[in-house]
């Protein structure tokens, strides 16, 4: 597919690891809650216009996001969606071991076929690890994957690592996950960051990685990093 968008971003990962919720939050800033879970059929396309600074002059870019289906039967077709992608966000559910195994599969797959594609790792559902966030008052889950393993993997694959979560269980509270235009930074607001840090000491997960997606775009490399996240 020859995209009219300037940056093609693809989300990959097993089913029910939160890809669609991530996109939904990014594009429409809403979260439909876990009870509304519906698996994606095929793939959904969404786009967002943003501006970046190239050598002092603004430039508009379209980011096209492909939210793919996690179901196994669509796996053979995923090539179609990540072809010529500049960024692949590999998502995994922090409480689900299989989803982590799949991340390794996708990494190989993407690196083999798309040399220009940058890889981003995204651990979702971090709030499940926190006891106080459980609506039913149960204990927080234990992480299914050790933080050190994840960090090492991220380093090896030169992938930026992000953690996403949802604060509280009420649907009106914000997701910590943010992709902010114009720089659509993967990161967390400060308040959440503090909590995540305390979390990270327990679970050994690294939460400090902040990156910008548009590194995937060579043209924007120079100007874009000026106003990074704190």
């Amino acid at each position: 597919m020859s995209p009219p968008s300037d940056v093609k971003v693809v989300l990959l990962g097993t089913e029910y690891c939160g890809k669609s919720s991530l996109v939904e939050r990014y594009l429409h800033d809403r979260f439909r809650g876990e009870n509304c879970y519906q698996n994606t059929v095929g793939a959904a396309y969404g786009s967002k216009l943003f501006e970046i600074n190239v050598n002092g002059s603004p430039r508009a870019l379209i980011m096209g996001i492909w939210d793919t289906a996690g179901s196994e039967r669509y796996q053979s077709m995923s090539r179609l969606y990540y072809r010529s992608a500049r960024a692949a966000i590999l998502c995994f559910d922090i409480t689900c071991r299989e989803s982590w195994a799949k991340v390794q599969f996708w990494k190989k797959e993407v690196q083999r076929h798309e040399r220009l594609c940058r890889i981003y790792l995204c651990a979702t559902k971090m709030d499940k690890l926190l006891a106080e966030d459980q609506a039913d008052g149960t204990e927080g889950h234990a992480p299914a994957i050790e933080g050190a393993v994840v960090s090492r993997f991220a380093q090896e694959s030169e992938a930026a690592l992000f953690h996403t979560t949802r604060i509280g269980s009420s649907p009106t509270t914000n997701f910590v996950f943010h992709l902010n235009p114009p720089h659509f930074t993967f990161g967390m607001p400060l308040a959440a960051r503090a909590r995540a840090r305390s979390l990270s000491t327990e679970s050994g997960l690294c939460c400090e990685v902040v990156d910008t997606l548009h590194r995937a775009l060579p043209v924007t490399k120079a100007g874009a990093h000026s106003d990074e996240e704190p």
Partner: protein
Amino acid sequence: MATPSGAWPALASPIPTSTDMEPTEAIGVGERLFATTPSGRNYLSDFMHSQEPIDPDHDEDEADLTAEAAEDYRLSTTHMTGSLHELQEDAVIKDDKTQQEVAEVMQRSMEACQINPDTVSRLSSPRKRSSASPALSPELDTDDEDDDDDDDDFEDAQESLSPSQKRLESQSSSVPDPGIMNSPTWRQQRKHVFVLSESGKPIFSQHGDEDELASLMAVMQAMVSYVIDMGDVLKSMSAGGKQIAFLHKGPLILVAVTQGNESASQLAVQLTYVYHQILSILTLGQLTRIFERKPGFDLRKMLAGSERLIQSLVRAMDSDPSFMLSAVRVLPLAQAIRDDITKTVIQSCQKIKNLVFAIMIADNKLVALIRMKKYYIHPADLHLLLNLVNTTESFKHSEAWLPICLPKFDPSGFVHAHISYLSDDCQACLLMITAERDIFFEVSEAKGKIVEVMTKNNTLLPISESMTKSKETPADLDFPELRHFLYKSRSAAQFTSPIAATAYQDEKDADRLHGIYLEMQHQLHSPHRPLKLIYRGDSQENVLGWVTQTFELYAAFSPDATKATAIKTINAVLKWCKKEETSLFILNAPTF
């Protein structure tokens, strides 16, 4: 294997043993409606231009076969009297020889699918304990005359239970309940649909966890394969007030059990839909390959996430008459507006290569349908697309691009569908289906153009208006005597119906009416004795069913309505349908 020449009323539709008829041909009325034209031409446009051809020989053939089949009824021993749980033991009655054979086959099949006979005997145990007389007294089809004989046979059979059978029973008395199958809610479900693989692995169950039903499914598999061993095909049974239909397609076995009014052929049509739904997710090629490679494959892995499609389809078939009528509803629109929409779509899509269909849907109704020359969409495929749109919330929020198989169009391959809603103000969904998988952005661009032009031409608003307006009751349409009606234009394979009057607001009442419609549809299209006009009344409603060359009509009146009122009203309805024809139906078949 000689059998008594008496008919076997327990089997609703005889199993033809002759080779004159393909097994699939007896699939039922609905299917017949689709399949009456020569191969490759049995699509929507045929309906749009031609009457439904009725094969005059068909019924005769079937009658002959009935006689033949009755002679050669090797499944004579399956005098079913209990629910499915009892099938295993019930299959083992009648003469010793047959009984022995059945027992052996069952044993073999169970071994093949690694089911301990204990498990199966456990299935039979509940009835043993609560063997109230209704379960044993055969509830038989009134079509046959030899009821008495059969009862005698049954008694005989009871006495001649083999030692192995008795062994099973004695074992069964000590084993605990088989869980879900003993739960009253599960047993009292009006209808069940099961899908399993040829090797007996559970794939889908409408109610309850498939894993818990593994042993029941093994029995189903055993029964199907036993009949195959005899060189025959198991199609349906009636037992314990239930209709049980079997459909063996490719590597799958589908079973439906109903306590409702569906006939065996109607159930077979429904099972065909379920089968097609699975194909539309996987394609026939993939399905066959999977099971060729690994006969014991757990297909649920491949269907993960799509169970909801099957569930909603099965549920819809319980209340939506479109499946029974094999027709689609059309959103009423003035012809000029529909033509304008059609024109917009055609013009915006001109440059897209290999665009096969563009379909606009609103509120589960067809707004417009444009096809590529030489290609037709079958109503059955259309129902699958409607089901997909109805059950997928995410289409409302983003454009989707997905591979889908349309089994009637091409069962072996995927086409690609671009699915999106027109706008937030107009909840109409546009599906563009192409054979190319790499042209998402071209299709997406065309969609943008369509919305733009429709906004400019002001054709979005009429769709929204019609969607609100379609909540009309018969009284709103000026037929106060009527509670509900269905009018199907047979040549167009489309139908119209208002929403039901207050008498059917309650789900229970609506179900009852749907049941009556099902029964009437079966009587009107019965291959043996098709009726033309039915008027039936009871304390709750009077219902009329009427089929002619051009239309099929069902109408429900209050129980105190007189025949004269009914006839007068019906004529008014027919006049109204004729007058509104151009807005109620799509009578042309536009192409790109």
